[in-house]
């Protein structure tokens, strides 16, 4: 390793992909993935994330733009000349070769004769030393997945591309492999570009997440940043759950904007509003379900002053162990989601009860009201 090394940077400048049938999978896109980072491309299926990955791998040629790895332009290089390796969705292990030969494949193609030591070390890293002479179909899904990672990593690529690598695994194994991959990435320090549709996976593993929608990057940032400060309704709904309430701008009060929603007033910090605010204009007020506290209407007087409040009626409550998830019917919004930790449960909070929802204005975010309020929700994805 030499001094400040950026040879593992991935720079995409204005790349786009339009297929022969006229479908544009990726709109012109600029993206820089810094050396050594764990970068996730997150989006629903068909959003262009896999196409982006394939353009980095060289399996797809961009219609416009350029791909750089470090200082080297690789836009038109065939995949076998690029210092990147891919962990394919459903692994694409060679069925006629045993595990050892699968892992040794890349080394042998580059004319390296003594592969034994390296392959054995790599199989140790992914804890498959015992399985070296088995064929891929004799291994479980999780083991095959680790072979796919080992087969790619052994070549010390500048960038490792992962195309939904955990999609075929069951939930428990997936959680385990997420930690495993994260451990491996920290250990080898290679740039990882990870494509996934699972927002939880992206947030657990990646340093930086780019949320893609319809061939565009909607927002890019650290998982916490994306979660707390979504810029679009798509990001707000796709990453976790958001309550979005339509409100009208009333006045400005110092660093806060005062909004009218239903009969009441809500405060929104100016800094957390990504939409233009003019008196009388509309904004969408967003609040995450776990940030909201519930108080029975009888105790409304006990709520500290200065908090945002809404009134409503509990429509549904589901107990899920660590928390209880409520659906609240409110005059400003039909279905507000509220997650309350099960610390001290108020027995009166049952469906039909009148409640006051309240939260700290600091947790409120504001979005442009011209967007589709349901973008990125599961119902929309299913449609």
């Amino acid at each position: 390793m030499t001094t400040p090394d950026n040879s593992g940077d991935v720079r995409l400048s204005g790349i786009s992909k339009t297929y022969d049938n006229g479908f544009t999978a990726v709109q012109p896109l600029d993206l820089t993935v810094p050396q050594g980072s764990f970068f996730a491309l997150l989006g629903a299926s068909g959003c262009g994330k896999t196409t982006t990955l394939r353009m980095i791998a060289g399996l797809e040629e961009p219609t416009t733009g350029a791909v750089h790895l470090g200082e080297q332009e690789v836009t038109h290089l065939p995949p076998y000349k690029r210092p990147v390796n891919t962990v394919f969705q459903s692994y694409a292990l060679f069925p006629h070769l045993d595990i050892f030969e699968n892992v040794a494949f890349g080394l042998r193609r580059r004319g390296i004769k003594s592969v034994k030591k390296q392959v054995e070390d790599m199989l140790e890293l992914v804890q498959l030393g015992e399985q070296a002479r088995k064929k891929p179909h004799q291994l479980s899904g999780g083991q095959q997945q680790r072979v796919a990672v080992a087969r790619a990593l052994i070549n010390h690529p500048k960038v490792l591309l992962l195309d939904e690598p955990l999609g075929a695994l069951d939930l428990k194994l997936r959680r385990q492999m997420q930690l495993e991959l994260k451990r491996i990435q920290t250990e080898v320090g290679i740039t990882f570009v990870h494509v996934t549709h699972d927002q939880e996976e992206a947030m657990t593993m990646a340093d930086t997440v780019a949320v893609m929608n319809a061939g565009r990057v909607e927002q890019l940032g650290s998982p916490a940043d994306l979660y707390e400060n979504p810029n679009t309704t798509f990001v707000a709904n796709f990453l976790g759950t958001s309550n979005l309430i339509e409100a009208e701008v009333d006045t400005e009060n110092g660093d806060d904007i005062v909004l009218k929603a239903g009969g009441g007033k809500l405060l929104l910090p100016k800094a957390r509003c990504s939409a233009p605010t003019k008196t009388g204009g509309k904004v969408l007020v967003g609040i995450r379900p776990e940030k909201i506290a519930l108080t029975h209407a009888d105790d409304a007087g006990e709520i500290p002053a200065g908090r945002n409040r809404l009134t409503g009626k509990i429509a549904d409550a589901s107990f899920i162990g660590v928390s209880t998830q409520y659906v609240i019917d409110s005059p400003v919004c039909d279905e507000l989601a509220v997650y309350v930790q099960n610390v001290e449960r108020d027995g009166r909070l049952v469906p039909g009860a009148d409640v006051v929802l309240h939260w700290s204005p600091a947790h409120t975010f504001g979005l442009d009201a011209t967007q589709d309020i349901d973008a990125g929700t599961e119902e929309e994805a299913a449609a």
Partner: protein
Amino acid sequence: MSTLTEAPPPLAPAEEAEPPRKRGRFTPYWLLLPGMLWLVVFFALPMIYQASTSVQTGSLEEGYKVTWHFVTYWNALSEYWPQFLRSVFYAAAATLLCLLLGYPLAYLIAFRAGRWRNLIMILVIAPFFTSFLIRTLAWKTILADNGPVVHALNSLHVLDLTNWLGWTAGDRVLATPLAVVCGLTYNFLPFMILPLYTSLERIDGRLHEAAGDLYARPWTTFRKVTFPLSMPGVVSGTLLTFIPAAGDYVNSELLGSTDTRMIGNVIQTQFLRILDYPTAAALSFILMAAILAMVTIYIRRSGTEDLV
């Protein structure tokens, strides 16, 4: 009373459940029966009959008797071994040619043909719509002494080369080994292409991408991934070509000469012209045994058991 009237229903389904299970047990045998009957009548019985014929002695006039005269086998082999060798050689040459012609085509259909795939497949199968004999006779015209093919080969001096190799003689292609091998190749080519296509088409395209991603150039990808994975098709294609070609007599009869007689021609002559049934039957069994032995060794060697 009400309990009594209600009692039977739960029993009834249990009673009904029994017979289907019994019936189910014999279903496989019933399904096998027509095929087995067919095999017994048209395969097992003729085989036994031929086996007995091969160890009989006698003449047409006096009738034949089973005398366990195994010497017939030895005589047949020592007299006709050149035709045996020639059959194996021609069949092997035709199989190799089929593989060389068929593989690129099967590859094209499987990976590159796109919307032309079905059309090309139909073209591969189309020759089956006319009779084997007519197609072979057509080759007689194609390879005719004054035909365009011979002229072209002659002016390109290809015939000088094939003459030198002993595949052709004089200015002729017809009635030479080359003509017979060409005929065999042509007639059995679809049997090579179809299994090759099937096994190539089954290969997951992502394996090609994975090989490329792991620094394999296209040709290396073919050698290390595509070809090994198509081995089941290569093995079944070569078997489907070699086995019938080794026993074929039509191509040699129509396109060859007395110098290109294959074992099939000998058997045919023994059965239908010379009427020496024991020798003909013995030759048939020797051919069968030889092919079985070769195929067994071949399959063992190609080691495709865990691929299929």
